[in-house]
């Protein structure tokens, strides 16, 4: 049980927590947050592998984490605004109620 595997386990846990949230919650916003959590789990993996990997001086993991954070930010913004639009259209964010494909 080395340092690295500790981080990996943690990130696996984060991932599955996010997945569980995304799968079981009803509210669209929380589903989005769950997806964000999964992204973060991936970031943790990148950083950990960068730290304990063969070529830390290349900064590849850090770069990937930075890029994925920015992508996640964009994703959150767009996702939340989509949720707002959906809410404006059919006054709910409950995914169980949002199962009709025609507006």
């Amino acid at each position, binding site marked *: 049980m*080395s340092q690295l595997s500790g981080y990996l386990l943690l990130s696996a846990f984060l991932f599955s927590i996010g997945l569980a949230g995304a799968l079981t919650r009803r509210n669209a916003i929380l589903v989005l947050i769950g997806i964000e959590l999964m992204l*973060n789990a991936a970031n943790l993996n990148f950083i950990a592998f960068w730290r304990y990997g063969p070529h830390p001086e290349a900064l590849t993991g850090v770069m990937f984490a930075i890029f994925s954070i920015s992508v996640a930010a964009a994703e959150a913004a767009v996702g939340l605004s989509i949720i*707002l639009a959906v809410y404006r259209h059919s006054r709910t964010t409950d995914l169980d109620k949002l199962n009709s494909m025609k507006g």
Partner: protein
Amino acid sequence: MTISFLLLAAITIIGTAAAMTLKNLVHCVLALSLGLVGLAALYMQLGAQFVGFTQILVYVGAVAILAAFAIMMTRSADPAVSHVVSSFRASGALIAILVFAVLAWATISGTSAQPILTAAPESSVGQVGAALMHRFVLPLEVIGLLLTAALIGAGILAMDEHRGNQNRGTR
């Protein structure tokens, strides 16, 4: 397994778990930001100071606030919500547990996961910037484009269809 790692991991796990399980959405967001701060601290512990601070800045400063705003605007916070978990809670939870099991198994049994114990590599901001400007300049450009597109898209999506008329009404 240093103490600090365990502490931060505990904070992160508690925060995120709370974020996914609590009933009240605002509590969820707050718990989430706690968990993400823990995660950022973990990044810093791993020597990626820049990423850690960026994490706090982006997630706590922007994403959490944004989510809070969305919750306020969609009135999801009021306790009127009868039951918070969706219809297939059981299967979802089961799948999540399975995923965790598989990943954990992979991690523990993975032979390639043996770390190469190097001295802590410092990623000074200067190096990060240099890397962004040289090796990763193309991804940087792409990200810039993506962010611009996201900005415009989010604006248009969140824009109220009747806003123009309302303005004309008020002015």
